[in-house]
């Protein structure tokens, strides 16, 4: 072959090389197209899912929060990616149609019993005198528990003051009705015990002692601290708070405890004992509280299945506290919508912000990001309120809860947060949710209940703030610094 043809052929090698490059790059399918391809026939088989997981392993950084949990591929996240990608591309596919056998099922545990502790000190007489909302609420809640489709092995009923004064094990629906019908001041008096004082720390200690993996406990009381005759309650409030903190702190040292508190209201008729233990006859509506104690998983299940949502008379307020070593870090998804200025997501939507620039006209830099709070124990409404957040001072935060039917690509998130600033700088942004007593606790707490007939005072509970603060101090000691969740986004200019 002469030199002329050799040279000419060499010229043609270059496009040939790039054609081969094109061919091979086309063969390496991207995750999105592969997910859509898998979803075309409506079902995803075991082998297909396994191949896709291998592709994820090849194509993504190990630790990518889209697919990994604790540096291991999370099959649930992979399935969510496939289904939501298909939905975004207009292909209907359910999670049930995706093979999930590789996801190890959680072995079923033994079911706990549900134990009701009814405080029966003298101040509780007013709540059980005649037909009251208190009785209706307790009865409807216990009815929910008994009909909770086998969530509990049995329901046990107790009266409690300084000691347990009555017990009824394995209550049936008939015994339950009888229990409610017998709720009156005479029964309380007949059961005895020390009814003249309400030592909240001691009350909690008794219930906490019997709380474990096999026992979910419910304590019902007006939670008005009353040390007894001749003692001023106001002077002992801080001691009670500290005592409660110690009791709870000791329990959570070795137990995964969660506590839910709900505030309800009932008509009352009878004596109220003020901070000096002076009785006043009252008639009207007063708050009372139901506290649930149990393992975190059980309390979370109770909250999620709505057991507490349809109590007769309704729930005014609620809060939940739970054992947690440090603020729980939540993944985020950055959005390009509603942005002001410019930025890039070099590491994807779950990564950091790069190349941030403020808007040229107003010097504002702003962006949206999504967070999923559905797996946390607090009600979603808690996350709607900016007052429950702590964030960097140079940014302003606004929040919207995502509604059903929004973009399917965002279906796995619950809240859209918007941060804006006029002082853009390289910064690690932190958005925390507070682990502090909610505002209703302070608003519903009284420090002086001597004029209990005042309509405003009737709506309050003496010393509630100290009681709740004691619990929060136990659960959210340092390094928590009163923060329960955290989202971190690094902004680089």
């Amino acid at each position, binding site marked *: 072959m002469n030199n*002329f043809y050799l*040279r*000419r052929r*060499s*010229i*043609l090698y*270059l*496009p040939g090389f*790039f*054609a081969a*490059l*094109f061919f091979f*790059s*086309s063969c390496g399918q*991207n*995750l*999105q*197209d592969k997910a859509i391809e898998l979803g075309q026939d409506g079902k995803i088989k075991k082998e297909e899912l396994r191949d896709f997981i291998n592709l994820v392993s090849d*194509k*993504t950084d190990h630790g*990518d929060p*889209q697919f990994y949990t604790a540096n291991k591929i999370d099959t649930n996240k992979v399935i969510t*990616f496939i289904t*939501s*990608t298909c939905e*975004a*591309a*207009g292909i209907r596919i359910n999670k049930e149609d995706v093979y999930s056998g590789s996801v190890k099922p959680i072995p079923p545990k033994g079911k706990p019993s549900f134990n009701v502790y009814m405080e029966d000190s003298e101040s509780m007489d007013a709540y059980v005198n005649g037909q009251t909302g208190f009785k209706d609420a307790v009865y409807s809640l216990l009815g929910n528990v008994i009909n909770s489709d086998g969530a509990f092995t049995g329901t046990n009923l107790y009266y409690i003051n300084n000691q347990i004064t009555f017990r009824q094990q394995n209550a049936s629906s008939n015994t339950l009705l009888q229990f409610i019908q017998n709720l009156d001041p005479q029964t309380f008096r007949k059961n005895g015990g020390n009814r003249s004082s309400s030592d909240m720390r001691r009350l909690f200690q008794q219930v906490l002692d019997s709380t474990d993996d096999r026992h979910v406990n419910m304590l019902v009381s007006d939670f008005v601290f009353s040390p007894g005759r001749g003692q001023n309650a106001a002077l002992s409030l801080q001691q009670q708070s500290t005592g409660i903190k110690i009791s709870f702190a000791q329990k959570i040292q070795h137990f995964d405890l969660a506590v839910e508190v709900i505030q309800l209201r009932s008509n009352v008729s009878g004596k109220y004992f003020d901070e000096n233990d002076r009785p006043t006859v009252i008639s009207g509506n007063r708050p009372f509280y139901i506290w649930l104690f149990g393992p975190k998983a059980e309390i979370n299940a109770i909250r999620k299945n709505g057991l507490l949502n349809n109590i007769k008379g309704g729930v005014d307020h609620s809060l939940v506290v739970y054992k947690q070593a440090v603020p729980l870090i939540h993944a985020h*998804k950055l*959005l*390009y*919508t509603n942005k002001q200025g*410019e930025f*890039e*997501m070099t*590491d*994807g*939507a*779950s*990564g950091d912000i790069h190349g941030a620039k403020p808007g040229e006209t107003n010097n504002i830099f702003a962006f949206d990001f999504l967070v999923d709070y559905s797996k946390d124990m607090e009600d979603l409404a808690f996350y709607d309120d900016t007052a429950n957040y702590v964030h960097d001072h140079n940014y302003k935060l606004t929040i919207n809860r995502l509604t059903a039917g929004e*973009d399917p*690509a965002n279906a796995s998130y619950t809240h859209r947060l918007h941060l804006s600033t006029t002082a853009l700088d390289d910064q690690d942004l932190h958005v925390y949710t507070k682990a502090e007593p909610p505002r209703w606790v302070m608003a519903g707490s009284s420090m002086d209940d001597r004029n209990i007939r005042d309509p405003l005072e009737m709506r309050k509970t003496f010393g509630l703030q100290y009681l709740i603060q004691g619990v929060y101090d136990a659960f959210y000691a340092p390094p928590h610094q009163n923060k329960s969740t955290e989202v971190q986004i690094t902004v680089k200019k």
Partner: protein
Amino acid sequence: MFDWLYSIGKDIHFITGDMLTHLKGFDIRCSGYYGTPYATYLAISFLIITLGGIGMQYFAIDSPPKRPVATWWFVELIIAIVNFIAAYFVIGSSISPGHHCKDLMLNGLDVIGVCFFNVLCGLILAMLVTGLPWIRRMSTNNVFTTFYKNN
């Protein structure tokens, strides 16, 4: 692989920021770069078209009877048109709803910008390739002929 090239396109205002994100393969869930890597496809398309076109031009000029050197510009025009059409073919349909992250603001002008950027890249590639002496020496008749100098 070629994201850097289209970042230059953004810097010289051929390509918008949103289009650059799209070209990098931002997926339809707007969650990360798990989608089609259009930047790679676009770059490879102009590389193949431009190098293939120049290769054929070399072949044509080297083959007897010799073609006039004036065909250089004509061939370059054809390469530019083909580059434009190919780029439009690669990226055009991807901006329709349901084929890209809906948070990205993309329109027809953005596509035209990308196509022109690919044409520009093709022209620059042609200038570079024909300007390199070792490539010119592969030809018999083009040793002193480049994109910008016809001898």
